[in-house]
């Protein structure tokens, strides 16, 4: 018998080991081996169903998954759209209504313009009013007067200290 051969062989190689009792040190849950065959059968049945099952109403499983994925995408798209409109509606609610905010919303695009050109005064068209005519006469007189003195030699005796 092979049992004797194994024993004899081991005695020659490892005499200490040969003397040890060859008991099984592991245990299994109760009734494990009674239940195991039906577990395997169940798994085999499942795998067989997977192979033969064409899906719902004869539609191949992969096609069904594809259609379901497209439907989910479409549903997701509309769901997102709905969400956005809800946010905007919420903004228009009374709770958010504020004249100042409304003003910002309307003039938002002009903010930078206002900052840059705040100190700038647009040139106004000159109009010849009564005042400006008098100013002009006075200015002309002063120029003529200064030119007159520039042409004459300087005489400080006429100056009254």
């Amino acid at each position, binding site marked *: 018998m*092979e*049992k004797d051969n*194994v024993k004899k*062989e*081991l005695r020659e*190689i*490892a*005499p*200490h*080991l040969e003397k*040890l009792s*060859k*008991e*099984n*040190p*592991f*245990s*299994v*849950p109760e009734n*494990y*081996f009674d239940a*195991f*065959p039906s*577990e*395997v*059968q169940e*798994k*085999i049945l499942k*795998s067989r169903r997977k192979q033969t099952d064409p899906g719902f109403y004869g539609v191949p499983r992969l096609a069904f998954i594809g259609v379901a994925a497209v439907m989910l995408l479409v549903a997701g798209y509309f769901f997102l759209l709905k969400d956005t409109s809800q946010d905007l509606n919420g903004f228009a609610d009374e709770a958010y209504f504020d004249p100042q905010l409304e003003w910002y919303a309307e003039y938002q695009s002009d903010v930078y313009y206002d900052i840059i050109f705040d100190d700038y005064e647009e040139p106004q068209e000159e109009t010849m009013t009564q005042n400006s005519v008098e100013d002009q006469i006075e200015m002309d007189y002063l120029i003529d007067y200064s030119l007159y003195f520039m042409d004459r030699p300087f005489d400080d005796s006429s100056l009254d200290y």
Partner: protein
Amino acid sequence: MAHYTDEQLMELIKHSDNPDYGFNLLVRKYQEKLYWHIRRLVIDHEDTNDILQDVFIKAWQALDSFRGEAGLYTWLYRIATNEALSFLKKKKRRFFLPWQDVENVLAEKIESDSGFTGNEIQRKLQKAIISLPEKQRVVFNLRYYEEMKYEQMSQVLDTSVGALKASYHHAAKKIEDYVKDA
């Protein structure tokens, strides 16, 4: 149940009206032997259960192509060994830290496993077996625990009888040293 030979079982599975019944008998005949073979390699019961289920499912799927040259017993052992070793390889890949290898994890399982009913010497023996290289472990287990003939083992592992004898010799020597020191 035990009186069904492998040939009768194959006949029931392949040519009867109820192949499921034949396969159920096959599972009942080999489940315990294969369970213990796998359990000694992966230690954990849950892992063993998963692997054993896979073994029988793969056997079922490949039964049509099984030609019976190697014998049902040898063929099932070959599937079980491959599944258990690839499970351990996958586990190894999961541990990317160098200090945490499969050997340590299995040793910890032996320490903490409530399903381990052996004494301290048995615990040391199991730890020694775990420390062996994978192929030596398989050879040692098949020869020491299952008392498998080298010729049969050669078919299971697709290795020459000479190489298997050498492998068993090395494994037994290492374990002898380990047990003696302990």
